[in-house]
Structures are given as structure tokens and as C-alpha cells.
């Protein structure tokens, strides 16, 4: 099996996000960068598949120089090689432009299945997997919590509101990972040592023979709307406080 996993480097979930004063983006100073948590599930699923059916796992990542660290993390988990798309033209790229770059890289290699995360936790847009599938002419199976394949077809479970769809598809296909799919492994120390020697191709867009065009952009970033300060219901008796709360919810907030 030729397995591809797309990974994105994102700020750690603990990161304090500060918008630059001119609203042009976020202040990246002091941010710790990590692999997008959903991509960890994608990489893990790729590795499990390789263990079951044989083959190799290629990591594809678009991002600036620092993103190499995230590729190495995936290699340390057990992936075999990487493609790092590094091009200043991708700065501020939208999902369409990013997917165009990923598709160009993936077109150049053999693939049977492509894993993505269901969304990246920075832009939170959850589109790259689907657009990538469209650009490669493949079916998409998104937000998947269970995946099974014999190498020719794939069967997944996709939860929706109040139900779960069991879907079958031909391969190749793009599968986007949701929490619950598996428990991602940690990189072992020998894994980390080995990862240093695994091949990573660094390519710019010209080398991929593609140019990208964003279809949308973030014109301005703003801090979240402030919430008015809350009210702590004082007192010693839980029953009295509960009664007060119920009254406030009914009469002031009007939500019950």
C-alpha cells in the first residue's frame, strides 16, 4: 500500500493567541508549534495500515521552514519519508491554494489512500481534505471514527447528528480523521534517532510545477467579543443558591 498522510504544523492548543495590533494576523512570538492533533490520528491510522498490509507511508506538509520539525515527528512515529512544500507564496494561503499545492505534490507519487485531519485547529476550516479529493478526482470520507480496508475498498464510520453512517468506497480515497479513530503512538527514542536519516524532499511550488491562487482571505483578525462579567451567587446553603440560580435563569436570562 502506498499511504500518504498530510500533516499541518499548528500552535499548541495551550497557546495564548494574540492578534497583531493592525489585525493582519496573529503574533507568532512565543508560540510552541506542534502537529495538528487530528493529523496525529491520520498518521497513526497510516502506520497501522502499513503494519497490516505492508507498504510505505509518505508525509506531506506545506509550511515554512519550522514545519520540518512536524514532519520529523511523523517520521519518528514510524513514517518512511516526507515531502515538505515550502514556498513564500503559501503564506496566508486559503484552503483552496493549500490543497492545490498538496495535490501537486501527491500527484507526483503513487498513492492508494490519503489521510488528513478532519480540520486544522488553527484556521479551523476543515476543507483541505475535501478540496484535495476533488482536485485529485477521488472520493472523500470525512470526519471518520473507524476505518477498515483490504487495500481495494475502504469502509468507514462517520458520525453525524444523532446517527452514524457506515460508508464504503473504492480506493484510492481521501479519509479525514476524527478523535476516536485510534490512540496515536508517541515517537520512541530509537524512532527519533532513525527519523533524522529518513529522506525529506523540500520543494517549492515551481519545483512542483504549480502556481496557487487563494479564493478567499482573512481581511482582518479581531479579538473575540468580550463577555460581560458574570455573577457569583453567594451564600452557604447550596439549596438556597440553587433556587436563586433557577430564578435568574428564568427571569433574568430567560433561557429556561
Amino acid at each position: 500500500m502506498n499511504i500518504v498522510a498530510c500533516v499541518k504544523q499548528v500552535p499548541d492548543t495551550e497557546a495564548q493567541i494574540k492578534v497583531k495590533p493592525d489585525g493582519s494576523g496573529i503574533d507568532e512570538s512565543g508560540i510552541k508549534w506542534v502537529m495538528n492533533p487530528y493529523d496525529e490520528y491520520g498518521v497513526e491510522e497510516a502506520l497501522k495500515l502499513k503494519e497490516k498490509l505492508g507498504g510505505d507511508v509518505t508525509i506531506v506538509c506545506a509550511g515554512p521552514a519550522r514545519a520540518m520539525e512536524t514532519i520529523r515527528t511523523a517520521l519518528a512515529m514510524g513514517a518512511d519519508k516526507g515531502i515538505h512544500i515550502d514556498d513564500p507564496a503559501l503564506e496566508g494561503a486559503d484552503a483552496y491554494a493549500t490543497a492545490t499545492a498538496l495535490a501537486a505534490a501527491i500527484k507526483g507519487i503513487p498513492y492508494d489512500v490519503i489521510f488528513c485531519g478532519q480540520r486544522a485547529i488553527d484556521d479551523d476550516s476543515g476543507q483541505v481534505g475535501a478540496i484535495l479529493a476533488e482536485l485529485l478526482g477521488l472520493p472523500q470520507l470525512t470526519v471518520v471514527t473507524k476505518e477498515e480496508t483490504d487495500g481495494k475498498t475502504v469502509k468507514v464510520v462517520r458520525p453525524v447528528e444523532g446517527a452514524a453512517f457506515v460508508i464504503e468506497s473504492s480506493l484510492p480515497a481521501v479519509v479525514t480523521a476524527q478523535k476516536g479513530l485510534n490512540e496515536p503512538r508517541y515517537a520512541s527514542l530509537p524512532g527519533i534517532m532513525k527519523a533524522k536519516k529518513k529522506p525529506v524532499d523540500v520543494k517549492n511550488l515551481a519545483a512542483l510545477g504549480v502556481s496557487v491562487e487563494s479564493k478567499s482571505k482573512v481581511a482582518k483578525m479581531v479579538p473575540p467579543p468580550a463577555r460581560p462579567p458574570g455573577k457569583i451567587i453567594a451564600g452557604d446553603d447550596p439549596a438556597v443558591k440553587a433556587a436563586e440560580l433557577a430564578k435568574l435563569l428564568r427571569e433574568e436570562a430567560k433561557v429556561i
Partner: protein
Amino acid sequence: MAKGVWIVAEQRDGAFRKISFELASTARKLADELGEEVGAVLLGSGVEGIAGELGKYGVDKVFVADDAALEPYTTDAHAAAVAKIVKENDPSILLFGASAQGKDLSARVAGKLATGLATDCTEVKIDGGKLVAVRPMYAGKCYGEVVFSAFPQMASLRPNVFPAVENAKAGAVTKFDAGLDASQLKTKVVEVQKDASGKIDLTEAMVIVSGGRGMGGAEGYACLEELANVLGATVGASRAAVDSGWRPQADQVGQTGKVVSPNLYVACGISGAIQHLAGMSSSKFIVAVNKDEEAPIFAKADYGIVDDLFKVIPELAKECKKLVG
């Protein structure tokens, strides 16, 4: 010139989902500002009969494709049908629900139409005749205003955020042929496992009662279930509770769980870690019950009680029952 504000309505088992009316009302507002019409796309099998209902919420024209291949939902079939009718009519704005189906479909359609999509928006407005879509980014730690350089300008709207307002328009129904070619459909739904509990999904619930590590175990949730019963609420959980095996994955609220915006979110025994806040800070009212007055959840709460939840919640259920009847 692209013209018209369109929505892609969502139905399941022949009934509209609430988000469809939220979309219609929002589209109406935008269209009135632009002086344009509201169009809706409705896909399914045996759904022509319900199409007219969209008129009640401000839709001028409904384009219906009624085809057995559109039921149950598959990305392949629905994306092909939406792309076809949209290309033929060239609307300037195209709105979807940021529901499980809407997110899957909208991204594929954006790919097919080679245009931009702003996901999970909490506000949409018109500026200089063009769409500006406002959406939380970085788990709600900041908001981005998205603008578009291609048509249609696409956005998906977060459920429960935009009001559904009745505003009767013609809702004239036109049928169209989805033009599906069975050989191009590569995915097949082999089973739909319905949740028999009949509870409303967290993403659609108006009231959520959520418990964290402070619940102490699966049994601890009995008091939350009782309160939820009284309030017609859905029970949610923090990741700590899910990872401990007390609650199923589907109940998790937060950055790696569900993003919810109910009218009321009651957080019990939840400390308010940044990843949890990511999933619920757009709730309209937030209540926190926690025995630690320093818990960060209180900084987000409209009302807080510092006490043992096992003493507070049963009393709260009793009091609410008196009020709600």
C-alpha cells in the same frame, strides 16, 4: 454578473432540519440588503412536497432535485447536483449549514467551483456589495473577517447562532435534473446507525448540561441526566470525562470535540481548560458549578456557584422543575 443569495437546505428523512430555516432567514436579510432574490437548493428523494415550506422563511425560489440516488446523503451525489444547479444559475452568495453534512458538502462544492469558503461562521454581512463572513479561528481565541475573490462567495453558518424568522415569500418550486451518472458515484452508504435514545445532538441543543472530571465517575452523571430531563437538555462532557471512559466520544465538547452554541450551557465539575472553552464559549449563557472558586471557568460564566455540585445540581433540578412545570 453573479446574482442572488442561495442556500443549500438540509433535510433528513423528509423533514427539514432547523438549520435550513436559519439559513433561509439569514439569506433573506442579505438579499434584502442587496436587492436580490433568495434561492434554495433542496436535494433528496420524495422531498418535493416539503419544498414550499422554505417560502415561509423568506425563500423566493426553491430548486428541487428529487432522485433516489440522492438518498441517503453521499458527498459524490450531492456535490455534483449542487455544483450543476449553481453553475447554471450563477448566484453571488451560497450558504450552507455548518452541520456534519453541510461541512462535508460545502468543502467539496468549493473545490468543484474553485471558490472560497468560510466555515462555521457566526456572523455574515454585506460590505460594498460583497460578502464578509466572520468566523472564529484558533478555537475562538480570535475571529477572522473573510472576504472573497471568486464567486459564488461561500460560507457555512454555525447552527443555533442565526435566528429563524418567518417572513413569507413565494417559495416557488422548480424541479431540476441532478444529472447523476451512477458510474461516477464511488461511495455507498451501507448502513445508517440511528441513535435510539432520541436525544438532540449537542451541536443542535438549545440547553446543554455538561460534566467533567468533578463528576467522579460514570454514576455521577445521574444527577446531570435528571437536570437535563427537566430542562429538555442534552448532556455533554469534558475530554477528561470522555478519556476516563465515563461518557462516549460523541459527548465531548471542546477543541477536539464538538463546538456548541446553545442558549444555556451548564458546566459542572469542569475546570475550564482553554481546550474546553474552545468548544463552548460562543454559548449565549454560561453557568458554572465548581467547588474551586479559582477555576478558570468562572471567568467565562454569566452565573457561578462555588460549591459541591452533588449538593447543588439535585436542588437546581428541583427548583427548575417547579418553574418549568
